[in-house]
Every structure is written in C-alpha cells, then in structure tokens.
C-alpha cells in the first residue's frame, strides 16, 4: 500500500545537527580536552605469529614526560572477554565457557599489528617517541595467511585445537544448515553447475581515526569513545573490566563514520581505562591512520564453492555452498555469508567455516555477511542463466523467493523492484544477449542483481519528556554514525506528538542519560529504537490529553521498551540494482556509466539522508567490486595495502550518478511502516557490477576485486 507524506515524516529534512557538523562546532572524540589529561599510543607486533620472549620498557619509562608503560606482563585484561563482543545481543554465556580468551595484550601474538604495549605520556609526541624505545624479542612461529592452508593438515596452530573458530558452545562446525532435500533437488535437475568465488578482506576505512578518553570518578569509569552503540560498549567494557554496567558511563556525541565496526568496545577503551585508573588522571589513547588500518577490523574474506541444479525450464532445484571465511586470529563476529534465501529453491545446503589466520581481525562491515555472499550467489545464478540461455532478469523473476503458505512476508515487493528497475534502466536495450560480442576494444555491458534484507523488530527503549512552553525532549541511546538517527528520532517524536520538529530537543550518545538502544547496527536503529520513541511519544500524548501541558517547572515523562514481533512473518526490505559498465579490454579500465537502484524500505521517514544512504552504500559496493583489497606479503605476513592510497578507495571522480527510487509501503509494522535503509544499498552492488562486467567482456570474473590485472589476464 502506497503511503502519503505526513506532517513531518516523509519530508526532506536536513539533519538537526548539520550546522554543528559543517561549522566545526561538533565535538568529536579527539576534540575533548580534560584537565591534566595524558595521551597514550599503542605499540604493535611487527611479526605475524610469535611468543614474546622478552619485552624491555625501561628506556621508554626513562624518557622525560612518560608516565606509564603497559604490556602483557603488567596488565592482563580480557578483551571481548574471549568471545564475540558487542553487547547483550551477542553471546554473553559463551564468555563464561570460552577456551580462547583474548587479552588486551597477548604474550602469544597472532598478527602484524597486534597490540604489544602502550605508553601514556604528557603529550602524543612523547608517547609516540617512547614506543620506539621499547625493546621486544620474539620467538617467531610459523604463520598461515590463507583460509585453505589454515585448515589443511600440518598447518601452524594459531589456537590449540586447530584453526577453525569456535562457535558459542566451543564446537568447531560450519555455519549454515540444510533445507528441503538437497540430493532430491540435484536428482531432479537436468544440469548441475559448479563454480568457486572468492572475495577479499577490506577495511571499513571510516574517516575518523579511533581514540578513547577515560577517566574515573571513584569506582566509576567515564569513557568517551567513538562507538555505534553506547549501551553495548558499556556492557562490553564493564564485562571486560569486571565491573557492573552502572559503573561504566559511555559517551559518544559525534563520530566520523562507523560502518559496523564500532558497535561494542575496543581494546583501546580498556587501555585508556586501565591507564586512567592506574595514574588517577584522564588518559586518551589515540590511533594513527596506520594503527586504524592494522588494529581494527574489516570485512571477512571468503572462499565460496557453489553447486546449483537447474531444470531445462530454468527452475533452480538445488543450491549448495561450502565456504570458508577468514576471521583473522580472533573471532570478533560470525563469519557467515548470506544471500541464498532470496531464491525460492527449497533444497539447499550451506556450510561456512569461520577460519583463523594470521591476518588482521575481521569484524562487521555494513551488512556484514551480505555483499560477499550476494556476489557469489548472484554471480553463480547469473552464470547459470546465461548457460541456460535465459535473460538474467527473467531468470530472477522465475527463481526469486515468493510468499508461500509457510513463508509469509509482512509485505512483498521483490517482483516490483525488479520490474520497475528493468524498465527504468531500459534493460532490454542496454543488456547484450551475447556477452563480450560488442565491436572494438571498449565493451559495454549491463548487469543486475536483487536482494532482500531483514527489517528486524526488537527491544529498545526511549524516554520522551514534555516541559512547559511546549518543549519536548527525546532521550535515546543513539550516536548518529551517519544515517541521521538523531534527526529521525526527533522527527518520529514530532510526528507522533503532532508538534513541529523545532520544538523537539534530543539527548543522545550517553549511556547514563539515555535508555538502552541496540545502537546503530544491523540497520535496526530506526525499526527498534524508533519504534520505542513512537510508543513513548504516544504515551506522553495521552498524558498531555488527560492532564494538559505541564506548566512552570513541571514535566511529564513517558518511557517505552516495546518488543514488537511480526507474528512469525518475514519482514524484509527488497531491492534490485542495475549497472552499465564500459570495460577497456586493452587497458583494463572499468568505468561505471550508469547505476540505478530500486528499493522497497517501507515508509521513508526522511528521504534526504535515505537517498544518501543508498548512494553511499553503492559507492562502497563499487569499491569492493573493482578496487579495494588489503593484500598481504605472504612471505613475511605483513599487510601491503594499508591506508586510503594503497587500498584504492574510490574518489568522487570514480563514482557515477546513482539513481534510486524508493517503493514506499506501510506494512503495519515498525515505526509508521519504516524498514531498513542503511545497509541495503551495499548488498548487491558488487554482484551487480560483476555481472555487468561479464556482460561486457564475456568472461566471468570470480574473484573480488575485479582489478586491471585480472581483467587483462582474462581477456588475454
């Protein structure tokens, strides 16, 4: 059902904090100065796998201005408490049973860039200078960089018991499972296709290099840190330091991008906290740009072997994927790959092994399991479509998931996204039925892909307050990593209270002042915390209707912690992307000449940033498709593509105009029918580009990124 714009929702609304941000008044973490504060820097391992035999910090300690040095010998602080961290929604129980405890500093170092010491000093320059004076001797161990080699017999053991990561019950088994009857599905098939796809590790590469500022008031820790979730960061930090949640206050007012890697705490939060406790003064740990590359997380790289059975009429009867995800030496996040459920085929098997290597640690990056998963399955299905002689759009419409008796959706718009996209893009004219057949060295091609992404509902809290003079205040635990959550939350309150947006103030980014929020991860901030804002605002409106607006110093307060459900129905956002590329088969350049998307993301609460979210995500997806990588020197175990220069992030000049249409609906769930936007745009961008490249050159590119060398080798 189509929607009409409301009074506030659905209207293009500039961010409520736009002025502070663009005039430099917004206080980012490194802008904070506290009296007497010290600055700290982290020393990192220069070897991929070793035991620290000896670490001598005496010269660093003797440097004038140095206040303290920390190593694994002085501080044994669990980080992530040995398991996947990231707050209550992750696996707290596992933290009690894990046998793979990770510490802030580990005597057993497992990757180049792993923290081995930290120095606190009166300024950042002395701290950095002191790092050079720390002497370390390593007993080096054999290392392994490749996921296949890591699980082969005789591979160096990064952890006792082998390099397959533990699940929440300490078992080493693949992620996935079976649906239907795989063997029956393959038996039914007229043809079976097999292909291997690989995707590279890439860094989130957000603009703001990380930092953490800690100070203590008695036995309470106050932590200023760029996090996507103040609630989750508080819980993680309390857990790691052996504190109660109420003993930790996490504050994050502004941040320079998160992209998924900042929900939860980080080891440098713990270093700052420990230094501040030991020294009795505030301490800010700062990461340099290079630190930020080595010592944080990126998208896990994958190897995915697909096997697909198809009937002669083009119906897919069986889908099997076996894969491995490279997690680095510590398990920070799942390692899953997604995408299979966008197909209707009921006979499926998925088995993905999360594998430890001596590379930098993998974590969440915008739709963590999706772009690499969709690249593989969408490339696979695109390939099958061509081999069956079917137009990929027709193949999609035939094989995509549809509502059934047992698979019900709160609403369904996948067919509409594909059809509208194909028409707007002029697919029939742009698509070349004979890939690679265009005349001349510069070949054009068109590709498409389609997706769905869970628009989850779930528990979150909000408080809304009315004061005299018609001022309203919303208290939400959001931190606004880019999508404009502060603005969205304010708009939801204004709409529900039926008051102008300008009468609504927001209190955010502070775990002491704001109730629990899932934080900005999983594109759930609007659907979960936003829903709580609506519920609280409705309650407040009832109170005002009954008792009138408060006068004088009186206030009215409403809070809500709803935990809505979809009653067993799937709630998904849908999308289809179409791209046209030009591939220069002599020089190897790929130019994206057109990019068009159609998304169904429920009601669009604020169209202005929603469009920016789709565009920003597509840009990252094109980067993942064509450019980005963190290549390692496998002889030494050192990363080579650190920083924006080497990792080849796209510049403005690389980015085409990205056209998007939102199909707006209200499925009756979520805040006014809003679904997810933030991650949706990246999911099928790599697949769409890869399929377009195939259409242009007639050679299937199975390994991301699709760089010049691979293209020229392929067409040679």
């Amino acid at each position, binding site marked *: 059902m189509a929607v009409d714009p409301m009074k506030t929702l659905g209207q293009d609304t500039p961010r409520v904090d736009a002025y502070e941000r663009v005039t430099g008044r917004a206080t980012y973490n490194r802008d904070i100065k506290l009296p007497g504060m010290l600055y700290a820097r982290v020393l990192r391992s220069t070897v991929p796998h070793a035991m620290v035999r000896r670490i001598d910090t005496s010269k660093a300690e003797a440097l004038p201005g140095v206040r303290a040095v920390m190593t694994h010998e002085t501080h044994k602080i669990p980080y992530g408490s040995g398991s996947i961290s990231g707050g209550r929604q992750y696996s707290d129980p596992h933290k009690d049973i894990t046998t793979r405890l990770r510490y802030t500093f580990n005597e057993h170092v497992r990757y180049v860039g792993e923290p081995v010491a930290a120095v606190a000093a009166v300024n950042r320059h002395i701290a950095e200078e002191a790092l050079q004076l720390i002497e370390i001797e390593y007993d080096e161990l054999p290392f392994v960089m490749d996921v296949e080699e890591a699980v082969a017999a005789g591979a160096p053991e990064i952890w006792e018991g082998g390099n397959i990561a533990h699940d929440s019950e300490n078992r080493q088994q693949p992620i996935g499972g079976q649906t239907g009857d795989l063997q029956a599905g393959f038996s039914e098939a007229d043809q079976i296709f097999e292909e291997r796809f690989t995707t590279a590790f890439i860094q989130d590469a957000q603009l703001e290099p990380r930092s953490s500022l800690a100070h203590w008031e008695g036995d309470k820790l106050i932590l200023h840190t760029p996090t996507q979730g103040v609630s989750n960061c508080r819980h993680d930090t309390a857990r790691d330091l052996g504190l109660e949640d109420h003993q930790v206050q996490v504050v994050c007012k502004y941040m320079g991008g998160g992209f998924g890697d900042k929900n939860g705490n980080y080891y440098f939060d713990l270093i700052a906290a420990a230094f501040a406790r030991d020294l009795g003064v505030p301490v800010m740990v700062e990461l340099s740009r290079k630190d930020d590359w080595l010592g944080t997380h990126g998208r896990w790289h994958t190897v995915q072997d697909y096997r697909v059975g198809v009937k002669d009429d083009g119906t897919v009867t069986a889908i099997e994927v076996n894969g491995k995800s490279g997690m680095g030496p510590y398990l920070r996040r799942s390692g899953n790959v997604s995408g299979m459920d966008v197909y209707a085929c009921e006979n499926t098997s998925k088995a993905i092994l999360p594998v430890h290597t001596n590379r930098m640690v993998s974590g969440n990056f915008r739709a963590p399991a999706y772009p690499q998963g969709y690249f593989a399955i969408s490339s696979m299905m695109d390939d099958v479509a061509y081999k069956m002689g079917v137009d990929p759009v027709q193949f999609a419409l035939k094989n995509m998931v549809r509502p059934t008796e047992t698979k019900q959706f709160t609403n369904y718009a996948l067919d509409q996204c594909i059809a509208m996209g194909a028409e707007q893009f002029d697919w029939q004219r742009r698509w070349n039925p004979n890939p690679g057949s265009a005349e001349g060295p510069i070949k054009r091609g068109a590709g498409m892909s389609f997706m769905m992404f869970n628009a989850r509902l779930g528990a979150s809290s909000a408080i809304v307050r009315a004061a005299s003079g018609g001022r309203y205040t919303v208290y939400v635990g959001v931190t606004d990593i880019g999508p404009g959550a502060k603005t969205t939350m304010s708009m939801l309150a204004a709409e529900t209270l039926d008051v102008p947006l300008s009468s609504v103030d927001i209190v955010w980014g502070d775990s002491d002042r704001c109730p629990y929020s899932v934080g900005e991860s999983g594109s759930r901030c609007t659907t979960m915390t936003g829903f709580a804002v609506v519920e609280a605002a409705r309650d407040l409106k009832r109170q005002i209707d009954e008792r009138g607006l408060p006068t004088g110093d009186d206030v009215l307060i409403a809070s809500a912690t709803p935990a809505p459900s979809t009653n067993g129905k799937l709630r998904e956002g849908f999308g289809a992307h179409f791209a046209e590329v030009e591939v220069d088969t002599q020089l190897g350049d790929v130019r994206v000449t057109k990019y068009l998307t159609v998304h169904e993301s429920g009601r669009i609460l604020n169209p202005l940033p929603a469009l920016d979210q789709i565009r920003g995500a597509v840009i990252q997806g094109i980067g993942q498709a064509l450019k980005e990588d963190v290549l390692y020197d496998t002889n030494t175990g050192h990363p080579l*593509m650190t920083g924006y220069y080497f990792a080849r992030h796209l510049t403005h000049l690389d980015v085409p105009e990205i056209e998007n249409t939102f199909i707006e609906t209200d499925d009756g769930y979520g805040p006014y029918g809003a679904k997810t936007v933030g991650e949706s745009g990246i999911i099928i961008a790599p697949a769409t580009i890869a399929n377009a490249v195939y259409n242009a050159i007639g050679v299937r590119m199975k390994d991301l990124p699709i760089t010049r060398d691979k293209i020229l080798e392929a067409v040679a």
Partner: protein
Amino acid sequence: MKTFTNRNPESVGHAVSIARDAIGGGRSVVFAGGGTDLLQLVKERIPNRPGSGAPDVIINLKGIAEMNGVSRRNDGGLAIGGLTSLSAVSANTDVSARYNAVAEAAVSVATLQMRNVGTIAGNVCQRPWCWYYRNGFDCFKAGGNQCYSVSGENQLHAIFGGGPSFIVHPSDVAPALVAFDAIFRVAGSNGERRLSADEFFVLPRDDARHENVLADDEVLVSIELPAASGNVRSGFRKLMDRATWTHAVGSAAVALDMDGDTCRSASIVLGGVAPIPWRVEAAEQMLAGQTITAELAEAVGRAAVEGAQPLAKNRYKVPMTQRLVERTVLAVAG
C-alpha cells in the same frame, strides 16, 4: 614523528652549505620542496635517504625565490625552477604551447591540493611508491639489501630495467621532461652540474638504493627544456587504478616533430613501468619519416614492449603498455 631541526635558507648556496655542515657534523639531512610526500615519510619513520633513518635536519627550500617560476631562456627553451608548483607548471602557457606533454603530466599528478603545494623537483625526486618501501620494509630503497617484490606482490612493479630492485619510477612529469631532452641542473657542495636524463636517473643495476644521482647535499635547482619547434605535438597519458590521486600503473609521454602529415622524429618515454623514465628508442625510430597510420601506431606499440621482462604478477602490464603507446601516439598525431 622523530624530532628534527627545520632550516629556512634564502639561497641555493645557503641551502647547500647548511646541508654540508650538518652532514659534516654527523646529522642526516633532507631538502623539502612542497613537503607533501616528505613529511609522510618522516611521520612513518621511513628513510627518505636510504639507510639514514628519519632526518635530523629538514632544509625547507620554499623561501628561495630563485628556484621558483618558469622563465624563457636565450636559446628559445625554458627553465623551470625546481620549486615551481605543479599547478603553476600546468597553467604556464609557455609550457603548454610548446611542451604540452609536460603540462598534461603535471596536471595528472595526485590532487589539486597537492599540485598547488607539490613542486616539480619534488615530483621528479620523490621516493618510490612501492608498497614494500612505503610499509617500512628494509628493502634496497630504505637502505637494505633486497627487493621483496621479486618473490612477493609485484603487480605494480617494473617490466623494464628491473633488478635487483623492481620499483617503478613514480614521477609523472619525468617521462614528459625526458621526452623533450630536459637538462637537470643540480647544485651541491662541489658546485653545479648540468645533467641529461641518462646522467641524472640511475638504474638499480648501477645503484639499487637511489633513483637518481643526487648526493645527500645536492638540490635539483631547475629543469631546462631545450627549444622545441612549433611543429612538435606532444601529449601524456596516464593509467591509474582510480580516477585521481594515485600514481601511474603505466604512462606514456609522446612528442612528435611533424612536417605536415609526416613525422620527422619522435620521442616516446614511459612512466610507471621501469625504475627510471623509460625511453623506447626502437619504437621512436619506427615513426621517423613516416605518416602515422593506425597500423603503424599498432606496430610502434608492439615495438615499445619488445624486450619487456614481466614478473610473475605483472604480465598484464605488457599488453597494457603496448596499447597505451599505440593509443597515445595516435592521439598526439591527431
């Protein structure tokens, strides 16, 4: 960042004497033009001068007026002061009128902000952008004794003139300057030298640690371009792994001295594929006295990559370079 002393000389002689005295006192020295790249190296503690660590003294040349600007020479050529910004080089009408490839190369460098600050001498003398050197490996270029790319990741490395180091020369303007037979005017403690490209740039087989012959106390003061006839057409084409702000995966500077439809003589110099600006004489000679056709340009491209010796992961650069030369010759011939 290591603590260093900053000096601001007002003349070339002063700069050189500061360098001589500091080196004599056992302190390491670097000269700073725009400093856009130098300061990155200093921050990361990557040796700018091989084997010398982060510098003790940075000699900031920006106050030396005599090194800034483009001037006409009596012989009809131009002198480009080493401190002239890349933006100023590309905007100079004397440069673009007669030495178009130089102007095009200058405007292809990095980003506008960096071209406004970065200097032509700095661009010619910048250290390699090999990912081993830039990530702190103790390779030849840092003063060590090996090239890690040989058995490692060599996708972006040399297909000509490599060994024992396989870096590619990072300058965009250098191939264009060499195409016009530029002279590199150098000043140091032992006086002044005027060097041809052959004398200025060094192959790793002669000196694996340096890309040119500059001694620690020597400055590239200016670059002289000999007179070029009004019949010379030139252009520069650079292949990059994104649209801007990166070095050449391969580049070609082509200058054609035309007599009507006939090419009297040609210069073709490649960047990004060899440890120095790489002149392809056999290809140049094929153009002399010829009318430039698509077929000839294709043959010239093939000749340009004759003798290429790719490594395990950069074979793609051979056909790429061949086509780059072919297309640049055709584009310049018009």
